[in-house]
């Protein structure tokens, strides 16, 4: 079985000199990878980096010209209670995916990867989870996000990046996005959780060549107390310690799957 300490040592190699974490060793610190590492390692130094990276509007992300990525929901799960978290949550509540370029914009919205774009599975899952855990009074936004996850769930259960059908063709679920969405819906929508877990159980072995898919699957299966959790953890042991080029996010998920980081992902 993978030992949390072994993975944590690999994850520590991804830390930058400024205390944050880049997407891989040697890369500059970024909010999303730093937040996941902070959750995995329960790491105050990473949290201090995050506190210094908050934008004026309370959000976190990468600025790329006119494109602004938005990782605020994930970062909120890593922040300690306090003003920075409250500002981040204010932003999460205000932030919504867009369904039309202009004109009336019908709900549900969910959350988008970048400001002003469409809502997708992973950022919507983080939005729901952040509010369920840190600001459960935001009932409308939580329900909006859940509705996005209901509408985007694949016909066979689970989720891909966020498309149930593409031009009349049913799209299959992916392990990585299914696993993350399960954290958001578990304990609040039993039907969605059940169908998602079924999809995860049926697919995780097929996608276990990818460390990120395997690590997220192992974390979700353990989170759900699923009978497949031990098998997934055993395969993860072989994969993560022998793989090359595994990035911070995949290592952080491996650590979360093996350690106590799961506690930070409970709504």
């Amino acid at each position, binding site marked *: 079985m993978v030992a949390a300490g072994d993975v944590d040592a690999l994850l520590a190699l991804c830390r930058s000199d400024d205390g944050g974490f880049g997407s891989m060793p040697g890369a500059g610190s970024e909010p999303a990878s730093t937040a996941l590492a902070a959750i995995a390692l329960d790491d105050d130094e990473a949290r201090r980096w995050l506190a210094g990276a908050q934008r004026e509007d309370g959000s976190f992300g990468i600025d790329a010209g*006119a494109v602004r990525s938005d990782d605020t929901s994930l970062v909120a799960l890593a922040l300690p209670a306090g003003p920075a978290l409250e500002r981040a949550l204010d932003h999460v509540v205000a932030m919504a995916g867009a369904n039309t*370029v202009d004109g009336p914009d019908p709900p549900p919205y969910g959350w988008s990867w970048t400001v002003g774009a469409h809502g*997708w599975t992973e950022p919507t899952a983080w939005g729901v989870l952040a509010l369920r855990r840190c600001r459960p009074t935001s009932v409308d936004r939580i329900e909006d996000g859940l509705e996005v996850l209901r509408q985007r769930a694949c016909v066979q259960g689970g989720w891909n*990046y966020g498309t149930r059908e593409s*031009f009349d063709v049913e799209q*299959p679920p992916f392990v990585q996005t299914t696993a993350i969405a399960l954290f958001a819906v578990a304990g609040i929508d039993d039907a969605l959780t059940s169908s998602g877990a079924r999809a995860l159980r049926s697919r995780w072995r097929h996608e276990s060549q990818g460390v990120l898919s395997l690590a997220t699957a192992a974390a979700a299966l353990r989170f759900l107390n699923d009978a497949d959790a031990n098998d997934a953890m055993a395969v993860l042991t072989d994969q993560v310690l022998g793989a090359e080029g595994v990035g911070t996010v995949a290592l952080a998920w491996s650590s979360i799957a093996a350690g106590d980081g799961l506690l930070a992902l409970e709504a």
Partner: protein
Amino acid sequence: MGRPPISRRAFVRGAGALAAFGAATAAGLRLRGGPASPWDGDVFAPPDRAHVAVLRASYDSDLTGIVTDGLRAIGANVAGARVLLKPNMVEYDRGAAINTDPRLVVAAVEALRALGAGSVAVGEAPGHRRDTGYVVSASGLADALKDVHAPFIDMNISRAAPVQLHTYYTTMRQLWLPDAVTEADVVVSMPKMKTHHWAGVTLSLKNCFGCLPGRVYGWPKNALHWQGIERSILDIAGAVRPAYAIVDGIVAMEGNGPIDGTAKDVGLLIVGDDPVAVDATTSHVMGFDPDRFTYLREAGRFLGVSDLTRIEIRGEDPDTVVDPFVPAPTFGGPAVIGGQ
């Protein structure tokens, strides 16, 4: 291909002049019919000559030899160069003709080494899957590259930095590009020959979307779609500036591409020293008038040669190998480039 007036690395890494910003903004707004050019004229020399080789091939043939011959036929010069190959691995579905075939990628690695490349790496930032490792392993590309000791770079997580744009079709002004792209002397775009439900065709220019890291642009890179897919193709290809293109048209995809279309045996590789010329020639072979694709016509104004009569052809005569593709059912004809 017209040689850029400044070196490629200087071009992609250099800070853009603020002076260009205002002029370009105005140009962009006039793009719907105005005469202004939405690119920096001192960066993009007027396209002049282009060379494209149309080659018959199968996956069981001597692909390394065919690609080497094709690159020689177009006069490719990669001696001592750091080369980045960019295949299309947007997502993986066993049995679907979505990806550039790993056998062709390996053949390109070996061909470029034979032609004296200093180093050859392969990089991709899949657009639908965050787990690049899964796509690369499941598709067989990881093992294929190990066999020839070629490194793979996951450009979704590799080091990246912002670069200033010298084209102004979108409002982005800046792109995050992996160091693997900006530090390469030569980028070779290696698309699959496919129809595309929004762009009409997805070839060497559209393939450049896969250079942008998902950790900035998301999975999918929806921000680019919201900027207008054709505008984004122009800005991204204008920043990446592939020097060469090798199109996998051995088994292609028609109909509901680029993911859910039907495999089509075509048996061709199309190799060229100008990605615009390669895409125009490939579109013609697919049975489409290149002018039907607005971004391709626009790219022919600054990035390469889209006029088929100005492309020097080697190998097969494109007219004799035209094999009409079923278009994507949702692609209705020339898009309006101003319609974001």
